């Protein structure tokens, strides 16, 4: 199958408008004849389901959570970008576009990113009108802060709970449609598989997590808004339930997975404190607006109390290495720099895996109340977890898995490679290239749901000859049977190891060999370890209970089984990409100064993996042709 991204010709700034002008429409009175399944109720899914229902489509919304409002988007802290230029500081659609392309280390599609920057301004309008309580200035205007990788202030925020507030906005819009009967809501329903009919996505298999009932649903189109797969690494900043099942199943049914190895490791998380640890907590990037990152210059000082280390004995390594961006250097670069100083033995805290994030200067300059107002809840979280007061002593932070730039391949229309399947939000391979800038995921999720999908799904629905099938068709019954069989097998193994122990071991393999720094030998090793672990899983896992009740071990087993397959593809992708770019750092490919070294002559393409039934995954390449910007070595110095 040839890759098709359906990017219209013409100047970059006009491409999205040109696409819209040429796309087919569904007349208002015909919309209610179409049914759309939307899996996921995070920012992407809730905004999509609400917007499609407002347009008149019949929507069925699914989530494994007990309420749409619990989606992982709720945890986003720092903010959302938009090219409003309310600050008069030189922002523009073009600048947001350029920052995002550059931040992504020139591995994103130009047309997608430009569109994202264009619709960013509408998102803020929409959310403000919904009553999202964004931070305000005394004049009543919206306030902004800055995030990494940008020299303008374009980030809108609601204290340290921006994701929560944006999600509540979308959740309320969705609730309104549910109340009106325009959306049927299926909560505690986990999608186990995608059903395709004649190569079109036409339905899903679900398990009702409260009753164990397995059921199929048919629709005219399927939207996946199922989030990222960072829990593949076990410890991450994700909610514990986030998983890859929906997109992995879709992959096995024909959807290509793009750039699965592009992973973001966030520089500012609370370091690991023990083996029992179940998750890592993010300290928002916004803290780097006012916090300064440092470690002692000398190894001998790492055990001292930070306040006793004199100014001249501190190494503010980000400010030293990247004077023009300083503490706001992009995430991949900041994370790697932290790893570097810790590898040199200058890390602080348990195991030497930590660096300081120090607010003393800002507290002196602005007063503690200002810092409290800006980040109070983050300081509280830090205190709850570590028992330390960060107003009095610097925070300790360390990088952690935070976001997956890879995901399902889609072109400008989103469903370009598997007709009828629209993947939005973090689940798609998205617009962030090899590294996502802070505050851009919320922007992308809402862009997709509010302003992209409603303009692309019509084109498919109006044109397709594949009508909504009946769930009695063989494609449905056979896919359902496969799902049932898989659950039955897992319940019947009765082995000696818990599901969690497999997840933990897989996570460690991924972190050791496919984490912040990767090399050929390590990746090859991981490619031996993962299949072996998978084999053990299928012969030695212990899943207690049965399938006709709430069974959290069974839920998790299915997710871990899919991680055990996806992990292998992620490592293979990392192995094949013999260059460093953004969050993908191959130690063999670095500049003399230790920065990521791309090889544009050989790797300026999107890696699109086709699932190989039995024959191993097959790589397709979508060339990244830049018409507007020049690919260059990123510099934040």
């Amino acid at each position: 199958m040839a890759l098709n991204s359906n990017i219209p010709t013409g100047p970059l700034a006009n491409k999205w408008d040109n696409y819209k002008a040429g796309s087919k429409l569904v007349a208002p009175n015909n919309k209610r004849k179409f049914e759309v399944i939307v899996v996921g109720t995070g920012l992407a899914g809730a905004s999509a389901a609400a917007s499609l229902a407002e347009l008149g489509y019949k929507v069925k919304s699914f989530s494994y959570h007990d309420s749409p409002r619990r989606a992982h988007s709720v945890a986003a802290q720092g903010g959302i970008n938009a090219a409003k230029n309310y600050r008069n500081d030189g922002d523009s659609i073009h600048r947001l576009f350029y920052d995002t392309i550059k931040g992504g280390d020139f591995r994103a599609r130009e047309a997608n990113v430009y569109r994202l920057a264009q619709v960013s301004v509408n998102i803020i309008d929409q959310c403000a009108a919904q009553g999202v309580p964004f931070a305000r200035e005394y004049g009543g205007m919206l306030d902004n802060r800055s995030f990494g990788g940008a020299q303008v202030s374009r980030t809108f925020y609601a204290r340290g709970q921006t994701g929560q507030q944006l999600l509540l906005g979308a959740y309320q819009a969705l609730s309104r449609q549910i109340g009106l009967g325009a959306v049927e809501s299926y909560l505690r329903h986990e999608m186990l598989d995608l059903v395709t009919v004649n190569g079109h996505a036409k339905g899903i298999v679900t398990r009702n997590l409260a009753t164990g009932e397995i059921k199929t649903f048919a629709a005219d189109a399927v939207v996946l808004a199922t989030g990222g797969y960072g829990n593949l690494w076990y410890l991450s900043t994700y909610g514990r339930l986030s998983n890859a099942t929906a997109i992995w199943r879709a992959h096995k049914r024909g959807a290509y997975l793009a750039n699965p190895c592009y992973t973001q490791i966030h520089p500012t998380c609370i370091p690991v404190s023990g083996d029992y640890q179940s998750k890592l907590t993010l300290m928002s990037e916004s803290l780097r607006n006012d916090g300064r990152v440092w470690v002692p210059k000398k190894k001998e000082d790492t055990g001292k109390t930070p306040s006793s280390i004199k100014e001249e004995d501190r190494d503010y390594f980000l400010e030293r290495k990247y004077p023009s961006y300083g503490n706001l250097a992009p995430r991949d670069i900041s994370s790697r720099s932290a790893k570097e100083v810790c590898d040199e033995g200058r890390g602080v805290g348990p195991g030497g895996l930590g660096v300081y994030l120090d607010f003393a200067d800002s507290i002196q300059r602005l007063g503690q109340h200002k810092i409290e107002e800006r980040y109070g809840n983050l300081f509280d979280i830090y205190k709850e977890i570590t028992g330390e007061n960060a107003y009095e002593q610097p925070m300790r932070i360390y990088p952690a898995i935070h976001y997956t730039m890879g995901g399902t391949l889609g072109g400008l229309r989103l469903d370009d490679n598997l007709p009828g399947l629209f993947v939005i939000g973090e689940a798609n391979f998205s617009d962030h290239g090899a590294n996502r800038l802070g505050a851009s995921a919320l922007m992308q999720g809402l862009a997709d749901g509010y302003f992209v999908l409603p303009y692309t799904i019509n084109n498919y629905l109006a044109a397709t000859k594949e009508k909504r099938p009946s769930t009695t068709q063989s494609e449905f019954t056979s896919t359902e049977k496969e799902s049932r069989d898989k659950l039955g097998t897992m319940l019947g193994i009765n082995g000696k190891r818990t599901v969690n122990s497999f997840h933990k071991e897989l996570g460690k393999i991924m972190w050791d060999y496919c984490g912040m720094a990767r090399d050929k030998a390590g990746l090859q090793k991981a490619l031996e370890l993962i299949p072996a672990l998978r084999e053990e899983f299928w012969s030695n896992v212990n899943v207690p209970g049965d399938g006709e009740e709430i069974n959290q071990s069974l839920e998790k087993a299915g997710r871990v089984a899919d991680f055990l397959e996806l992990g292998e593809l992620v490592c293979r992708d990392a192995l094949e990409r013999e260059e460093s770019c953004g969050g993908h750092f191959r130690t063999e490919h670095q500049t003399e100064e230790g920065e990521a070294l791309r090889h544009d002559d050989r790797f300026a393409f999107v890696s699109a993996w086709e699932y190989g039934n039995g024959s191993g995954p097959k790589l397709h390449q979508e060339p990244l042709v830049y018409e507007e910007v020049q690919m260059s070595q990123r510099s934040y110095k």
Partner: protein
Amino acid sequence: MNVKLRVWRQASTKVEGCFEEYEARDLNPNMSFLEMLDVVNEDLTLSGKEPIAFEHDCREGICGSCSLMIDGEPHGPENKVASCQTYMRSFQDGDVITVEPFRSRAFPVLRDLIIDRSSFDRIIQRGGFISVSTGSAPDANAILVSKDSADTAMDAAACIGCGACVAACKNSSAMLFVSAKAAHLNSLPQGRTEKMSVS
């Protein structure tokens, strides 16, 4: 540290439940309460028993999934934190800790510590929103909101919808949940036109 747990076990809504006792040994005081339950669950699984079902996701106090009644208090002994943000350092070595689901007729127990809180969603569906369809919004700065109003709205909007207020109330009233949403939306000018037309 070691503690003894009395945990509510109930196979489903239809059957009666009861307390069962478990030992939780060799705990680190820096473990969260849920991480302690993870350890107990690993042991239960390995000894051929069914693990304790409890709801959780973010484990940082924002998603509102976790909902444990710990020693008779919703979310346990610490103030202003969710169950997932309760740490073992809040307990003493040798403590006996009682763990139950949030108790309320509006929140039927589904299994063990998992309850059905869909009544909260139904409340929001009845009017916990401003009716603004996608695409129709004016420029965000066209609606001025004083900093005070925005701050008040945010204070109320921060509710995580966990249901602790219902569990704490002797009458199982959802008034705090409802008034938080009302205060959020009432503090802002955005929905004023709609409010005038329905009231």
